[in-house]
């Protein structure tokens, strides 16, 4: 049991006083971020990333920094549930499905039960995700040590094809959004030859677009603009959680073990294959409704309808870190931001991380166990406090959030130009969201663009331009084939339905 030994070492790292303090600080910050409109896991972590630059330079500081940031992420995952249940406003996209039954429960005066169920299921989902990471990631990393450029390119290809195949949005919109990300990533000097691309003679574009700025704009400013359409006021149910409600709900929860298990499995799968937490939560909700004996009561306020999406969202959110750590391929925008953090601190994510930075990796994995326990304690005890934040009027909180976003965008490179870009990305995010263009592929493409391109070009150099290198051996061939299958399937089905519709019109 190599993994268990490494995990114990990890606990030794994570259990220092500073790190535990950082966990609680991170979780509390994360919940606040998750509760506030316009701030979420991805852009919250992006804004706070520059604050860790100095922290990461001290010995052992990289581990502390990742613990802080990942705990912000856990906190944000928990926080999304609070707004969904009490205010019917999903603080995060993955908590949309939680509103379906969570808000009706709150209206019936069972907000405490809904919140307890949500938090506990989140915790269970995350726990399953971490267990998967603990035992699967060393194996994947070991396996990936043998990877060369063609293998890495095929993994990138799989990531992007999975996005097109798994997303609920129109495949061509996903494609546009993703390719725009690649194009943005290409701006600046070419990583292989140093030639300038698409800078059009301006000095500001030399460094290219940073995905952190894109994340802050797309998810932060875009989200605020969307929230505004609903008007300036929030009305919400009041929240009280006491020990009695918690224990009562906990007694009820074991009944739904099968739903939890199923949702956790869906979540882990969707997290590792980059489908993400949002589709996972919807899928888990749908599956739970179909298999539950109270299926027809879903939507009127059943606890099971809160359990399913929350378990899946957290399982997905957590396991999205697996490909990020082992392959350097993030499964979600927030994982992408964390990956960006690793790169800035001077760590190279990928299989070598497990060999060269054992302490860091296992410290992080151990902190996931502890961070989620910290999260559960914090949210169960402090819900009224967090709900109170949402009662701060929007006309006060919105400008403050925009200022925070501006500061966050600036501190990425100390460039004022990035603040302008943030607004441009904000408007883009607003338009794209309203028209169902998915944002996650855009962000991931900006992050991975340069590396996907580099591995593609290296592979092409190895084979002198022969595409067959992507099918050269069983490993790379099967990944590429899987990727193409995922890509072609939805395109074929769209074309099929379009032609059928046209044929029906003609007839």
């Amino acid at each position, binding site marked *: 049991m190599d993994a268990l030994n490494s995990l114990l070492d990890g606990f030794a790292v994570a259990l220092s006083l500073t790190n535990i303090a950082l966990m609680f600080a991170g979780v509390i910050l994360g919940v606040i971020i998750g509760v506030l409109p316009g701030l979420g896991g991805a852009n919250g972590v992006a804004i706070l990333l520059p604050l860790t630059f100095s922290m990461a330079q001290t010995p052992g500081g990289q581990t502390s920094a990742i613990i802080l940031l990942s705990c912000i992420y856990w906190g944000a995952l928990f926080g999304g549930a609070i707004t969904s249940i009490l205010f019917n406003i999903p603080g995060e996209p993955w908590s949309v499905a939680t509103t379906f039954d969570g808000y009706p429960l709150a209206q019936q005066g069972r907000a405490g039960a809904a919140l307890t169920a949500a938090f506990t299921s989140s915790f269970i989902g995350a726990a399953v995700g971490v267990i998967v990471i603990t035992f699967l990631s060393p194996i994947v990393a070991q396996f990936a040590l043998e990877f060369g450029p063609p293998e890495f390119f095929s993994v990138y290809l799989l990531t992007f094809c999975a996005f097109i195949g798994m997303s609920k949005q129109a495949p061509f919109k996903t494609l546009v959004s993703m390719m725009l990300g*690649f194009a943005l990533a290409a701006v600046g000097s070419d990583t292989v030859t140093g030639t300038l691309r698409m800078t059009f003679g301006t000095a500001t574009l030399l460094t290219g677009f940073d995905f952190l700025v894109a994340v802050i704009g797309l998810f932060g400013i875009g989200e605020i*603009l969307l929230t505004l359409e609903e008007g300036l006021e929030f009305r919400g149910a009041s929240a009280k959680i006491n020990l009695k409600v918690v224990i009562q709900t906990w007694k009820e929860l074991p009944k739904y073990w099968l739903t939890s298990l199923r949702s956790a499995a869906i979540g882990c799968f969707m997290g590792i294959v980059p489908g993400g937490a949002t589709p996972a939560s919807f899928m888990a909700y749908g599956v739970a409704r179909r298999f539950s004996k109270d299926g027809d009561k879903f939507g009127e306020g059943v606890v099971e309808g809160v359990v399913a999406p929350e378990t899946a969202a957290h399982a997905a959110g957590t396991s999205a870190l697996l490909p990020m750590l082992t392959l350097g391929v993030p499964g979600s925008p927030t994982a992408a931001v964390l990956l960006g953090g690793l790169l800035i601190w001077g760590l190279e994510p990928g299989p070598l991380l497990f060999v060269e930075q054992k302490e860091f990796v296992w410290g992080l994995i151990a902190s996931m166990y502890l961070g989620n326990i910290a999260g559960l304690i914090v949210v169960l005890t402090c819900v009224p406090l967090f709900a109170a934040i949402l009662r701060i009027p929007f006309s*006060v909180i919105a400008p403050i959030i925009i200022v925070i976003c501006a500061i966050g965008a600036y501190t990425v490179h100390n460039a*004022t130009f990035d603040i302008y870009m943030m607004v441009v990305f904000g408007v883009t995010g607003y338009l794209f969201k309203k*028209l169902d263009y998915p944002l996650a592929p855009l962000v991931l493409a900006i992050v991975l663009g340069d590396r996907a391109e580099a591995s593609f070009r290296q592979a092409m150099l190895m084979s002198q331009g022969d595409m067959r290198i992507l099918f050269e051996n069983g490993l790379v061939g099967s990944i590429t084939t899987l990727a193409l299958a995922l890509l072609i399937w939805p395109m074929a089905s769209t074309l099929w339905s379009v032609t059928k519709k046209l044929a029906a019109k003609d007839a």
Partner: protein
Amino acid sequence: MSEVHDQRAALSNKTAELAVAGFTFALGAIVIFDSWRIGARWAADGPQTGYFPFYVGVIICIASLVNFVHALLISKKNGAFVEVGQLKLVLSVLVPSSVYVVLVGFLGIYVPSIIYIAFFMRWLGKYAWWKAAFVSVGTNVFFYCVFEIWFLVPLPKGVVESLLGLD
């Protein structure tokens, strides 16, 4: 807010779809153009610099065309993209925010932030002047402490800060 109830469509969904598809097509065209300029072909030593972005641009253009045609053909989704009342609210935040961002370029972050938060609270929130001033100045003092003192991250500063001797 009475404007919220103005539910006439400021922009139809179809127009918005067409406009965005046209816009992404234009972006794709720019990518193709620039990649071709720096060389998008296969040289003796492998793919040229523009090779990868060139095909990215081609895919953007093709996919944009599909989205454009799709929006033209499927007329069912002809609802409102944004209602007049909603658009007013969105612009009432977007316009001041853009002005704020431009001001940051000239005056540093603190002074525009104070003005922006105060303006927002006063104009949209109808708060008393002293409340707006208190919140906006307080927030910025807090940011100053967190960033400049605690985490040692310098933020942009302008004339006012140098007069106060803060930079």
